[in-house]
């Protein structure tokens, strides 16, 4: 029984890992297609039908490129940087509840790697470690532009983590749990948290943009000022890992936003048409991925719509607008809980 459990967990870990990598790879393709669509171009269309083989071609290109490690840099830390970025990007998927458990022959198979009772805090912990990948890489490159990019990244991530944490506190006050599985289960029907926490949601998604270093907050790799930011000195697959980690982070953030605020695998009214729990579970998975894809699209949409901030504007927004707003949100939530006795 124990070994069966371990095998099942191993299988689901591998599946989540592969799906994460696959979605991240095709996010690069989707990003170009969305950019092309928004700018009235065609986008990649040469490799395979509709350019669908483009991510594979990109991957091969990344692997084949010459690998340059700067002579004066610290080699171990130089390699450690992208490794940490990739590792932390892949670790967050472990606590996301992908759907309700599948029941086969009376045995319940939860579609979640692990339901630890500190779900959200685990995500925060991993995200807060993620900044080391950028910092160590930027410092080990021994390049002024890299260092500046790394410093910007760390200051930005620390600043926005605070507002993000405060917006989550209001959500936790409402749900009374920090297990992601329970939060998702509570939002059945129309009880999506976004209707109870609209302000918190806006703060959270903006901070998610900042944490993923996505435009309009991609100051750490601002080309006009910093050449390439923290990955100026990186080449070949190490650069690939940095870029790829960003896309995995985007996928995971989309999944977490959907879980926390948009009901996760829940879809209103579906219970009226389908009653079999296994089919509901599969449908939940489909809906969840639908929501995830919508948010990935949203990330790209914003990227090609909103121009990049200036760095002082970014800090001003983080510290003087979002942190007071999220504290206000906590107070309002407390008042709401007191008045409506929810």
């Amino acid at each position, binding site marked *: 029984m124990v070994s069966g459990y371990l095998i099942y967990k191993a299988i689901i870990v591998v599946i989540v890992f592969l799906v994460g990598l696959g979605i991240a790879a095709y996010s690069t393709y989707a990003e170009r297609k969305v950019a092309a669509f928004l700018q009235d171009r065609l986008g990649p269309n040469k490799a395979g039908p509709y350019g669908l083989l483009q991510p594979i071609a990109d991957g091969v290109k990344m692997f084949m490129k010459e690998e340059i490690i700067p002579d004066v840099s610290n080699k171990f830390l130089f390699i450690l940087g992208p490794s940490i970025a990739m590792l932390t990007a892949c670790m967050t998927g472990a606590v996301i509840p992908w759907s309700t458990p599948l029941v086969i022959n009376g045995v319940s198979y939860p579609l979640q790697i692990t339901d630890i009772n*500190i779900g959200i805090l685990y995500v925060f912990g991993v995200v807060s470690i993620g*900044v080391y990948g950028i910092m160590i890489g930027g*410092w080990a490159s021994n390049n002024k532009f890299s260092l500046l990019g790394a410093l910007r990244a760390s200051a930005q991530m620390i600043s926005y983590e605070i507002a993000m944490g405060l917006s989550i506190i209001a959500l936790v006050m409402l749900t009374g749990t920090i297990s992601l599985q329970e939060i998702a289960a509570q939002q059945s029907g129309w009880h999506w948290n976004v209707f109870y926490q609209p302000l918190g949601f806006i703060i959270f998604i903006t901070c998610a943009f900042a944490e993923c270093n996505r435009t309009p907050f991609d100051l750490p790799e601002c080309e006009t000022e910093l050449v390439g930011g923290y990955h100026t000195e990186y080449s070949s697959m190490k650069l690939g890992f940095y870029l790829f980690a960003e896309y995995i982070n985007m996928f995971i953030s989309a999944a977490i936003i959907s879980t926390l605020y948009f009901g996760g695998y829940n879809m209103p009214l579906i219970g009226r048409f389908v009653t079999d729990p296994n089919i509901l579970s599969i449908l939940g998975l489909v809906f969840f991925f639908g929501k995830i894809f919508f948010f990935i699209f949203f990330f790209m949409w914003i990227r090609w719509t909103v121009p990049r901030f200036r760095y002082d504007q970014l800090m001003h927004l983080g510290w003087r607008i979002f942190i007071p707003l999220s504290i206000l949100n906590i107070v309002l939530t407390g008042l709401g809980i007191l008045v409506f006795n929810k």
Partner: protein
Amino acid sequence: MTLYIFYFLSFLAVLSAFMVVYSKNPVHSVLYLIVTFFSIAGHYILLNAQFLAAVHIIVYAGAIMVLFLYVIMMFNLNKEAEPHKDAYIKLAATIAGGIFMIVLIGSLKGVEHIENLNTPNQSAGLIKNLGNVLYRDYMLPFEMASILFLSAMVGAVFLGKNELK
């Protein structure tokens, strides 16, 4: 199994703590300190205090050490820039460190007698129990600590503002 993990984590914690002191490069020191924090968080998980472990990682490894690293990278400290302390300061540091070690040994000397007095509650570290204990039994000290933090924050903001003008 748990015992071996405990030994491994303890070894890692002590080793990296030594490396914090011994490494010449301040950035390496900070990175070793981060490893130390991680192994201590591992100890918390072994004690079934997951909340404490997560908060430890978020606050120490995720926030405070990033700021440390930030400052050290920004000033770009390295071996050449390290100011040379004169012999008196080194002597004073040695004496102070030695006295501190005696205090530590003295306080740890009686520890084997109280080891088995209270068996640890397996679920004490879970977030619900922790919340109940903090907000029911230790309400006053907890609020006092928050006020202390608040005053420290106000002080920090005030100092930062003064610097601007």
